[in-house]
């Protein structure tokens, strides 16, 4: 009886995983990324009638080029905001540099991630139990840095493609535009392919979460879920008596519904886009 009550209790007790600012940034990421991917792919696969149609729906190249650049600016903005966010945390003392770079809450990969990966493979193959993941799993860390890498690479090559006259005038040789085009294009394919398959599966489509994990929108998961998913984080929080700080109200069903509509839309766009890309790559 006590067990069930506690279980119910923990089911109704919610834990704040993402603060509102990070959630807001992710919404920006979703919106800008989808826009960039859609408009960018129409050019990358301009030979495909499907993408030609998409381009037309979006208003043709003259419109999509503006959308793409607008979304690029959003990307720059969220990238900047996130850096500002981190710097602000450091500045206000909410976060020490040590905590940022190492420790249970750090996103910087460490030795533990490699053992986690090893254990995970074993778990996949049925050779061991599910590893007790902490706040950030190794694939989540990869996702995080992939964005850093992606924004840097796509962003810089994109800037060169956006202002080739300016950059060549500064001294870059003409062929760098060609190099930038290859990098921009292939990195974009990597990013979209990765996000719409790997990221989508890892976060949303894996059976535990299927069809969608709304945590990035609501920012909260049930305590029960935290216990099961990230036992190490739970234990760490208990040990340090910090759990209380993160407990929060149950999100309203209305909000969840709204976020689900938004989330499913984004997921659908991503899935459709990746299917079209695969189809185009294979058949055209």
């Amino acid at each position: 009886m006590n067990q069930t009550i506690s279980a119910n209790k923990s089911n109704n007790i919610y834990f704040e995983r993402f603060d509102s600012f990070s959630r807001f940034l992710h919404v920006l990421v979703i919106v800008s990324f989808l826009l960039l991917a859609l408009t960018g792919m129409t050019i990358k696969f301009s030979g495909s009638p499907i993408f030609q149609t998409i381009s037309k729906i979006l208003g043709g190249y003259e419109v999509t080029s503006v959308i793409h650049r607008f979304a690029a600016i959003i990307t720059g903005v969220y990238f900047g905001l996130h850096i500002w966010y981190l710097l602000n945390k450091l500045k206000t003392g909410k976060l020490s540099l040590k905590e940022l770079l190492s420790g249970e809450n750090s996103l910087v990969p460490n030795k533990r991630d490699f053992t986690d990966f090893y254990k995970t493979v074993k778990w996949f193959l049925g050779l061991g139990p599910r590893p007790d993941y902490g706040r950030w799993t190794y694939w989540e860390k990869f996702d995080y840095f992939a964005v850093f890498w992606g924004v840097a690479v796509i962003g810089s090559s994109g800037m060169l493609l956006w202002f080739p006259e300016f950059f060549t005038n500064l001294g870059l040789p003409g062929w760098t535009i060609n190099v930038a085009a290859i990098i921009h294009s292939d990195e974009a394919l990597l990013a979209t392919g990765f996000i719409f398959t790997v990221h989508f599966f890892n976060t949303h489509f894996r059976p535990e979460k299927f069809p969608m994990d709304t945590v990035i929108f609501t920012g909260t998961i049930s305590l029960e879920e935290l216990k099961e998913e990230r036992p190490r984080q739970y234990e760490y929080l208990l040990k340090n008596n910090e759990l209380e700080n993160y407990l929060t109200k149950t999100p309203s069903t209305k909000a969840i519904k709204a976020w689900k509509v938004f989330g499913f839309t984004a997921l659908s766009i991503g899935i459709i886009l990746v299917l079209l890309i695969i189809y185009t790559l294979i058949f055209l």
Partner: protein
Amino acid sequence: MKGVLSYLIFFFLTLNLTGQVSHICLDCHGDKELHILEDGKYLSLYVNENKYALSVHAKLDCNECHKNYDPFNLPHITKEEKTEITCIECHEQESSEIASHSPEKVKCYDCHSKHYTQQGETLLFEEQKFCISCHDNSSARNYIKSIHYLPAGENEKPVKCLDCHDQKAHRVTPARFTEEKLHAVCAQCHETIVGQYELSLHGKALAQGKFLAPNCITCHNKHKIISHRNPAANTFKMNIPNLCGKCHKEGTKVSELKVISQRNVLANYSQSIHGEGLFKRGLIVTAVCNDCHKSHNILPHQDPKSSINRNNIAKTCQQCHAQIEKVHVKVIEGQLWEKEPHKIPACVDCHQPHKVRRVVYEEIFTDDYCMACHQDKTLQYERNGEQKSLFVDLVEFKNSVHKENTCIKCHSNINISNLPVCKDSGPVDCSACHAEVVEIYKTSTHGKLVADADPNAPYCNDCHGTHNALSKKNVNSKTFRTNIPTLCADCHREGEEAAERYEGKEHNIIKNYTMSVHGKGLLKSGLVVTATCVDCHTTHGELPASDPRSTVYSDNIPKTCATCHLGIYEEFKRSIHSPLVSKTEEELPTCYDCHRSHNIKRVDETDFRQNIIDRCGRCHEDVTETYFESFHGKVSKLGETKVAKCYDCHGSHNILPAENPESMISAANVVETCAKCHDGSNERFAGYITHANHYDKEKYPYLYYTFLFMTILLVGTFAFFWLHTLLWLPRALIDKKMIFRKKQKNKDDESNN
């Protein structure tokens, strides 16, 4: 002393040349004053001793002729004894042949003189007037005025009496030449002309013994034969109508006996432009009878050799009217008149003979004459089993471009012996006036089809109409520029006969043309200077594009387009695509290859800008592929027209390889070329590799390794994470099932509890 010397000379001379008797005679007869009166007439008895000494009889004594003369008594001989001195004793042979000049009429000495006797040849041929000394009549006096007496040319010998009147004076016969003999006499010198005469109408009549037939002297006189240049001559130009008129004017025996189609010849002539010129204006360059009918070889008009035969008329008239084709519309260089006279009306068909003044065709075959039948709307005839109307709408005709013409000018092939005269006259041959055009037409596909009697073949009237033919400048004309596409469409529209038999690649030509820049210009903007069918295919010499002579044959297309787009042609000529620049076996593109033909578009239209890549790509496949790999190409595929197409960088008609300094993509010009779209274009910017190929390791190592790195990164990342996911999925499903079962079990336990 002087007297003695002269006496001695005289003595010896006389002693040597004359006998003793003569010397005695001359004592008295050497006196110039010596004379007698006989029958009241003063008769000189003087004998010029010197002249006598020069005569053929110089060696004869006086008494050898004056026989029985007694020199010492007076008179030397009695009247009874006196006999006439005849020459027969010595000149017997000749005297026996004397004819006209018989001794009764003419004494020997009448010609040869008494004492100064000379050889006949010397006498007669030295002195032209010799005969006249006796024959001092009008004939003889006329002879002196004639061209035979005083030849016109310096080298011509005068014709003497005996040249015509036998060769020997002693055989001279009466001057009445027979007709036969007369011509033989004239033919001695005038062989050709007499020959012509003998074959002529006049000569033949003479040979047939027709008494009115003229001979040489009818026109040229007997003795008063004067040059036709001499105004006094019968044959002088001014006098010719009179001369001919003697026989040929109304009322003469000839005119009554001989029935010819021409009436009042002389009267009409004098009223005609030729006659008026001669009589009123005194123009001796005007035509008189013999200018047309010839002088000696006058032949009837039925004779093919006759100067007035229908086929020779033009030649005859052109003796004077040499440049007539210049004023008669395009009967090319007079050739048709001379070479194919049957094709066109003869001069006289319009300009009646003798009445020559203006075109008087109407007077023979008037339009009214034709319209008497052809105004009947029901008039029909059968051809190839089809009934064809022969009705002529005169109102329509009077509005046509040919309104000034009479029926017969076009329907020239009528025959007066047919009934009606126009029977079987066949289709109108427009080449009579439009020879140049018809010659071209004959070489065209249309013309050849006509020659092959193809039922679909278009003839002149299919495009130009018949009696309703209008000038191409007339807006209502079928051949007015804006109407040409419709006209050609009659046969060339899809489904019509010409389109059906066509085997080439161009289809829907009329529809396409209507939508093309030319068609829109013509039909929508009403620009009559825009190209219509005939501007490219020519009006009359259309040939299929496969024919090297065709204006639309690939090699000829640039020049055809250059008739309007000359400026572009000048640029194109210098471009790499021009055969003048590129000496290559490969086929070079012409205007058509980029612009197409019937569906030619405005170059700023979306379609054109998009399609040009395909056009260039047909030959430049590799660069087109790399173009499509570039940003320009990729965006272009999205239908964006503003982005650079081939010709934006390479130029269109002035396209040149990059090595050429004048090329738009040469090192000198490329920055500026990029700057057309890219403000701030610079040398390094222009170094962008427009046709890059990241698979080409040798040429573009940077790109190759960049691409290689990116590919490895991509494949590596996906390989890792997709495998990761692939392993995760079944495990997660198993786990979920277990959790579900566990939960289910818990629930069951709970409910059991």
